[in-house]
């Protein structure tokens, strides 16, 4: 299929266009509310905020904070008061969604989910049907924040991995380019003007932001270092010392996908819900017997860093489970910095090995 040519939409046309799309489907976009910019269903009175990275990641579009997996109903059997019947039904999601305004890092985060939730024979139908019904429109970055580091984890501030459409800010508006065939088919149906010369400008904008990214050493290629440090308790104790064991980093992370499943019921009716879970929580691995393989926050931090920079890449062709959005850094109540931990781990291993070689 031939991709449609790039299109252009002016700033003042954007909101009406999005609201038009919102007829018949859910449009999620970064909206200013309560002093925060969050991905919320777009309404006429919404204050669209495209200034930078939203405060939450858009992962809830594909993995809601809480989603019902199935519902169950107990009922008394007529005539046999001691017997109950049980009915269980799955609840499948079905909403068409246009997810607008994610940044390239967030869109790339979806590819981290895809490898786990849509893995050949193991397809999570809740995730997959949301993914199938969601068109992802990313906006290339123009103004990276101090905490941005997508360039250090294999990402690109002007990239389009995981997205169907790529918007790029240009003078007066955005260019729109199709990334996937699905995006192309969608774009063809939209009455948007041709981008013409603006496509070239867009390319320059993306080049410029690549140059504007804060520099630093790459964080990939660390899987073995993290593993070799596994038994270095003192190291993990020291990096985890200030951690509060809250869930800010996990819940704002566009790649954290771990979940919990719980039954919640009221009398005879209930739902089995899947909710975001957090590997820094004590309960995450607490077993029925009271034994907890990750009893302390140092062990939990080790698994968190291990998962993102070692285990996941080893299982998935070297791709990190981190896209460098920096939300965990910007929002950590104890100012933890995941970049620094990986760098420290690496230099700790180097130091040790040098010492061993001497």
């Amino acid at each position, binding site marked *: 299929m031939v991709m449609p040519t790039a299109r252009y939409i002016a700033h003042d046309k954007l909101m009406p266009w999005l609201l038009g799309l919102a007829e018949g489907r859910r449009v999620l976009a970064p909206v200013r509310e309560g002093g925060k910019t969050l991905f919320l269903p777009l309404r006429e009175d919404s204050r669209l905020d495209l200034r930078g990275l939203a405060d939450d990641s858009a992962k809830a579009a594909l993995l809601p904070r809480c989603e019902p997996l199935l519902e*169950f109903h107990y009922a008394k059997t007529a005539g046999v008061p001691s017997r109950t019947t*049980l009915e269980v039904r799955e609840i499948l999601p079905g909403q068409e969604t246009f997810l607008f305004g994610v940044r390239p890092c967030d869109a790339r985060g979806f590819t981290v989910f895809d490898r786990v939730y849509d893995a050949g024979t193991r397809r999570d139908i809740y995730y997959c049907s949301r993914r199938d019904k969601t068109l992802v429109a990313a906006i290339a970055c123009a103004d990276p924040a101090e905490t941005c580091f997508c360039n250090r984890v294999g990402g690109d501030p002007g990239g389009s991995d995981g997205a169907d459409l790529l918007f790029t800010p240009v003078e007066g508006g955005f260019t729109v380019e199709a990334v996937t065939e699905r995006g192309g088919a969608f774009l063809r149906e939209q009455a948007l003007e041709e981008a013409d010369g603006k496509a070239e400008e867009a390319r320059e904008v993306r080049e410029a932001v690549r140059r504007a990214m804060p520099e630093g050493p790459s964080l990939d290629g660390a899987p073995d270092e993290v593993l070799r440090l596994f038994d270095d308790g003192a190291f993990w104790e020291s990096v985890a010392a200030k951690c509060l064991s809250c869930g800010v980093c996990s819940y704002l992370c566009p790649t954290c996908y771990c979940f919990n499943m719980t039954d919640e*019921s009221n009398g005879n009716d209930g739902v089995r819900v899947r909710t975001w879970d957090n590997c820094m929580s004590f309960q*995450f691995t607490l*077993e029925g017997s009271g034994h907890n393989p990750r009893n302390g926050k140092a062990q939990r931090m080790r698994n968190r860093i291990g998962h993102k920079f070692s285990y996941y890449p080893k299982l998935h062709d070297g791709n990190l489970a981190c896209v460098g959005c920096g939300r965990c850094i910007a929002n950590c109540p104890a100012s933890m910095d995941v970049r620094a931990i990986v760098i420290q781990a690496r230099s700790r291993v180097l130091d040790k090995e040098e010492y061993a070689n001497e």
Partner: protein
Amino acid sequence: MSDSYRSNLYLPDMATIQEVIEETQNIKTFRVTLNNPDAMRSFRFEPGQVGQLSVFGVGESTFVINSPPSRMDYLQFSVMRVGELTERLHKLRPGDQIGVRAPLGNCFPYKAMKGKDIVFVGGGIGMAPLRTLLLYMLDNREDYGKITLLYGARSPSDMAFSYELPDWLGRPDMTTELTVDNGAPGWERHIGLIPNVLKEMAPSSKDAFAVTCGPPIMIRFTIEALHSLGFEDDRIITTLEKRMKCGVGICGRCNIGTKYVCKDGPVFTNAQLRRQPNEM
């Protein structure tokens, strides 16, 4: 693979409890059948695979299917009462409805074990996963060499499967030893910790596999004892337990390094475990 046949990974099959056996004061065995007769008829699993049992309104938990695949009248699960879900399971009676997501996980390498001597070492509820393999091997007796079983529990009254023990003890084609930490009047078998009794028994490690399951501390010392008897790490097989939710390697809590116990396990050789970080 086990999980591929399901279109919805999280939707259990409805099942009926057919029989409840009170094994000990805190262990009950449930024999269940799937409500859909076709599903029950076509149900296939291999020894060592697990299932998630659902009590709707409480949740799910993982248990090994401890009946052997060679006996498919029902699926059997033995449950020790330790928490919210097992507490509720223990209150269920024949006829009650539960959910079953099974089979999940890998199985014992029973094909690779063919022609070899087998040493089973089970502690407490850890006997349950061994039972499925043991019965499977007894049902295919000619495929395997000498079979030795050492089963230990805290006290005689904590021994599950007591109704099967006379058969196991009496069979000429296997050697069975029982031990308890604390004896009781009438107890005529071993009194002592499993690893110590194992060392006394000293089964030969030549052409043999050892299969062990039990509390973490028992496994640790049993593996030491097996080493001292000359068992190599790739001939020591254990089956692990972790907190699990999804059962299909997604939810992220049961991993040891890159291995998910629910999907890549629960059965591992000690050699495999030693290649993973030490996070038990």
